[in-house]
C-alpha cells in the first residue's frame, strides 16, 4: 500500500525542472551581485564577474530549453516524488533528532524506520545489520579513534565504553 502510494509519478517535467533550476541560478547570481556591492571594490569585482557569467549561463540554459522541441523534455523529473519527499524529510528529522537527543537513538530509529516506511519488512536482517553497523561505528570512532560524537542522552552508556 505504502509502496503503491509512493510510486506516484512526478507532475514536474524535465523541461520544467531545467527552467526552474536555471531561474533559481539567475536569482542566486543576482543576490551574489547585489551582496557583493557591500564589499570594497577590490573584493567585489571577482564575485560580481562570476555572478554575471553564472546569470548568462543560466539564461542560455533557459533559452535552449524554450527553443528545444517540446516532446524532448516531457519525461517526469522525479520517478518517485513521494519517496523523494519522504527520504529528504527523514534525513531532515534525523539531523534535528541528533541535535536534540544525540547520535545513538535517532540513528537506530532512522535506519530502521526509513526502510520500513518504504516497504521493507525483513526485520531479521534489518535490525541486526543496523545494530551491528552502529556497534562498528562506536568501536571505530569512540574506542579506537577517540573522536567526538554529538552530545547524547545515552552518554552514561558511552562513558562506560573502554
Amino acid at each position, binding site marked *: 500500500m505504502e509502496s503503491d502510494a509512493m510510486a506516484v509519478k512526478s507532475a514536474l517535467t524535465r523541461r520544467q525542472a531545467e527552467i526552474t533550476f536555471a531561474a533559481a541560478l539567475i536569482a542566486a547570481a543576482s543576490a551574489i551581485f547585489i551582496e557583493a556591492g557591500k564589499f570594497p571594490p577590490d573584493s567585489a569585482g571577482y564575485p560580481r564577474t562570476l555572478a554575471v557569467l553564472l546569470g548568462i549561463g543560466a539564461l542560455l540554459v533557459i533559452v535552449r530549453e524554450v527553443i528545444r522541441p517540446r516532446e524532448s523534455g516531457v519525461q517526469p523529473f522525479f*520517478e518517485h516524488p513521494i519517496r523523494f519527499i519522504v527520504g529528504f524529510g527523514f534525513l531532515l528529522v534525523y539531523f534535528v533528532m541528533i541535535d536534540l537527543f544525540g547520535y545513538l537513538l535517532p540513528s537506530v530509529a532512522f535506519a530502521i524506520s526509513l526502510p520500513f516506511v518504504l516497504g521493507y519488512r525483513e526485520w531479521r536482517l534489518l535490525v541486526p545489520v543496523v545494530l551491528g553497523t552502529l556497534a562498528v561505528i562506536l568501536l571505530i570512532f569512540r574506542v579506537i579513534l577517540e573522536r567526538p560524537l554529538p552530545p547524547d542522552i545515552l552518554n552514561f552508556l558511552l562513558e562506560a565504553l573502554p
Partner: protein
Amino acid sequence: MIDALVSALPHVLAPANLFAVLLGTVAGLVVGALPGLTVTTGIAILIPLTFGLDPLFALGMMAGMYNGGSYGGAIPAILMRVPGTPASVATILDGYEMTKRGQAAYALQVAVVSGVIGSVLSAISLILFAPPLVKLSLLFGPAEFFWVAVLGLATVSSLLGEDLIKGLIAALIGLAIGTIGQDISTGVERFTFDLLPLADGLDIVVLLTGLFAIPPVMQMIEEALKVGMSGDLLKLRRQGSVLSKWREFMPIWLRSSVIGIVIGILPGAGGSMSCFLAYNDAKRISKNPESFGKGNPEGVAASEAGNGADNAASLIPALTLGIPGSGVAAVILGGLLVHGLRPGPQLFRDHPDVIYGFMLQMLLSAFLLALVGGLAATRIFGQALRLPRIMLAPIIMLFVAVGVYAVNNSMFDLYMLLGIGLVAYVLEKLDYPSAPIVLGVILGPLAESQLRLALTISGGNAVAIASSPISMILIALTLFVLVAPLWRAWQDSRKAATA
C-alpha cells in the same frame, strides 16, 4: 626521487598503513561492486571518516578505495549485467556473455588480473612522471599558476559533462562557493552572513560529502529496491588460469594499459572513456573481431586493463599542478587539502614522505587487488551485494553523519550537508557534473590570489600576465579545450544536416 621513495618506503610498510591500504581496497571493492555507488562516493564518505588521522593512513585508504573500487565495478557487470561503476560498462559486453555460458569465474579472474596489471603500470607511470612534471612547474610564477587554474577549470568543465554550458555553470558555482569566507587580500569577509563557521569558507569535507555521498543515497531511497543480489551468483568455482595464457593476453594488457594511462593523464577524461577506447582497440587488432560482444575474454581484459590503468595516471596532473585527470582525482585533491597538503612543488618539497608514500600506496594497493579480488575473497566480500539497496541508504547515512559531525564537532555542518546534498541531487538529475564544482572551490581562490599577485608584480599591467611563453601555451591550451567541443558539435550538426 629514488632517495625520496626509499625514505617513504618504511612509512608505507608500517603495519597501520599497510592495514589502511588493505582496508581501503576491500572497502573499494564493495563500494565499486554496489550499483549506484561509485569510487567517488566511497572516497567522499572516507574523507570525513579519516579526518584527523595520520595523512599516510588516510591516503592509503583512498589509494585502496580507488584501485579496489575500479575493479569492484566489474563484479556486478559480469555477474548481473549491471555496471557497478560507469567505467565498467564495456566489461558487460563480453563479461556477461561469459557468465551466460557458465564462465563467470573465469571472466572475474580475467577482470582482476587485467585490472591488477593496468593498475600496477599506472602506478609506475605516476612514480616516473610526476616528479619531472613537478620540476617543470617550478618555472611557474603567479601569472602561470593563474593560467594553470583557468586551464584546470576549462578542461574539467568541458570534458566531464556531455554539456559544455552545464559544465561551465558547475565550475562557476564552484568558483562562487570558493569566494565564501575571508578575502585573503583585503581581509573582508564575503558571503558569510555573520556566521562564524563560514568565516574560513565552506568546509571542503562537508562540500565533498554533500556533493558525492548524498545524491546516491537519495537515488537509492527513490528507487527503494528491496532485494539484493542472489547468493547463487557468488557460488564460484575455479575455471582455469588466466596466467597460463599470458602470451595471448599480454599484447592486450600492454596496449590497453598505455591507452588508460594516456587518457588518465589528460585532464577531465578517463573512467569510461579509457575502458571503451581500450576495448575498441582490442577489437580492432583482434583476429576475430566478430567474437567481441559474444563472450570473448579479451574484451574483458582490454576493458579492465584500460580501466585500472586510468587510476594512478589521473593523479599525475592532480598532484603536480592541481589539475585532476578525473572526477575521482578531483575528490582526492580535496582529500589532500583536508589534510593540509596543497598540490604542487611545495607538496613534493615539504612532505616528500607523504606524497611519495602515497604513490607507493597506489602501487601497493594494485598488488593487493590480486589478493582481495581473488575468487575466494570475492565470495566473502561479495556478500555485501546481497543486502537490499533500500537498507544500504540509511547505513551509509550513519557513517556520513558521524564522520561529518566529527570534523568540527558542529551540527551546523550536518545542516549544511543536507542543503548541499539536496542541491547536488537536483544537479545530478539535471546532468550538471559535480566535479567542476569541486575544482571551482579548489582552484577559484588560487586563481584569484595568483591573479592579484601577478597584477601587483606587473604594476597593474594586464597584458603582462599573458606575455610569458608558458602563459601563452596555457592560454592556447585553454582556448583549444573550450573551442574543441563546440567545433565537434558544429561538425556533428553539419554531418546530420547533410545526411
